[in-house]
């Protein structure tokens, strides 16, 4: 059963506050793009793999969640190999793997509600300055967590359906129906978010705000 990104547990990683983990992830993400040299990037990927292992989540379930992303990373690696050189391709491979594994370490050890609260609190100064809408960013994070497992599920269904019809596994043959299907779902999801009053003036809002379209 895929789906449970969060793996309940009581490891030191689980006990670190969500805000600290997200701050670290943000910093690590930036740092990974400061260098192009393979050695530090490889070290970062290895460190991220160790962190992920320390979450205590079963390797099988981690791999199931990583599989589709691994496919995309493999494609990017192949493209770099073809159009750039082996060194660049290796550096890109390490950077993306480190990023994905670090991000997974955070999602596996942090409850969504804790994560959202941290995101919204962290962004509230930007919100006050009018530079970002914390509620929107929070919703985007929640949607990602909610629908990533769903998309993995679709990926498997489409792959199985094609296998049943004797179509050999090719990334394009899976990607196209996957994108089409998720675009259709996205339209419905957007309607559902509207229907549930997201972005409407809140009860405490001033009458002026209330009448803003």
């Amino acid at each position, binding site marked *: 059963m895929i789906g449970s*990104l969060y793996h309940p547990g009581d490891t030191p990683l689980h006990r670190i506050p969500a805000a600290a983990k997200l701050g670290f992830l943000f910093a690590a993400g930036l740092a990974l793009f400061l260098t192009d040299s393979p050695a530090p990037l490889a070290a970062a990927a290895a460190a991220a793999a160790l962190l992920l292992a320390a979450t205590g989540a079963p390797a099988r379930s981690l791999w199931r969640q990583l599989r589709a992303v691994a496919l995309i990373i493999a494609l990017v690696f192949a493209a770099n190999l073809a159009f750039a050189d082996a060194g660049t391709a290796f550096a890109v491979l390490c950077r993306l793997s480190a990023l994905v594994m670090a991000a997974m370490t955070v999602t596996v050890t942090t409850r969504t*509600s804790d994560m959202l609260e941290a995101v919204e609190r962290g962004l509230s100064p930007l919100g006050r300055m009018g530079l970002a809408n914390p509620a929107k960013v929070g919703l985007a994070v*929640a949607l990602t967590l*909610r629908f990533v497992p769903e998309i993995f599920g679709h990926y498997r269904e489409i792959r199985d359906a094609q296998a049943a019809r004797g179509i050999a596994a090719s990334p394009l043959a899976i990607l196209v129906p996957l994108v089409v299907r998720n675009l259709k779902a996205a339209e*419905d999801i957007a309607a559902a978010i509207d229907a*549930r009053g997201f*972005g*409407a003036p*809140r009860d405490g809002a001033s009458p002026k705000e209330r009448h803003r379209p």
Partner: protein
Amino acid sequence: MTDIVLDNVSVKRGASIVLDSLTLALSERRVAVLGANGSGKTTFVKLLNGLVLPTAGRLMVAGLDVARDVHAVRRRVSFVFQNPDNQIVFPIVREDLAFGLRNRGMAKDEIADRTATVLARLGIAHLADRQVHGLSGGEKQLVALAAAMVTGPSLIVFDEPTTHLDLRNRNRIRAVIGEMAEDAVIVTHDLELARDCERAVVIADGRIGFDGCPAAAIDWYVGRCS
């Protein structure tokens, strides 16, 4: 009851007319909407909380003009979509119910209270901390309904609530709809569910084909399909 008044309401999509000058007044507690695939049922019910706006004519819900007061209308009208997968937007059941309440700026402990009450009312308190992704279709439909109820609407609109369900879950949803205090407008291909209603409207090619008591509406609709 929640008054719904359509005055020559049309909906155009590009060049095609999806709904053509509907004039209708509904005040029953349970209204069924029937009709063939593509006849315009979903478009019709999406009008009721402003997910689709009339391109001509006027629609009043509970005394409010939907085109002008869409947010106020959405506070009174909740929507349960056909596919609960696309309507549940948070990964954990409890968090999803909280979403609509947070959008209203409600305080945390009140959110927790209301969420617990509604989950208990639908007999799914045990699902509160479950991952949505791991729920069965019937459980998801109940969660979607709980999220629609939790904001305290006076009207709940259902778009084919039983289509994806097995017999047991379908009966459960049917019982819940029958007993709930909120008014309901229900798009359905489930004729028994339609029979539970006080009134049925059949949409045919974007117009009102029949409007009356469910038994007569079903006869008319079945006759047309054979």
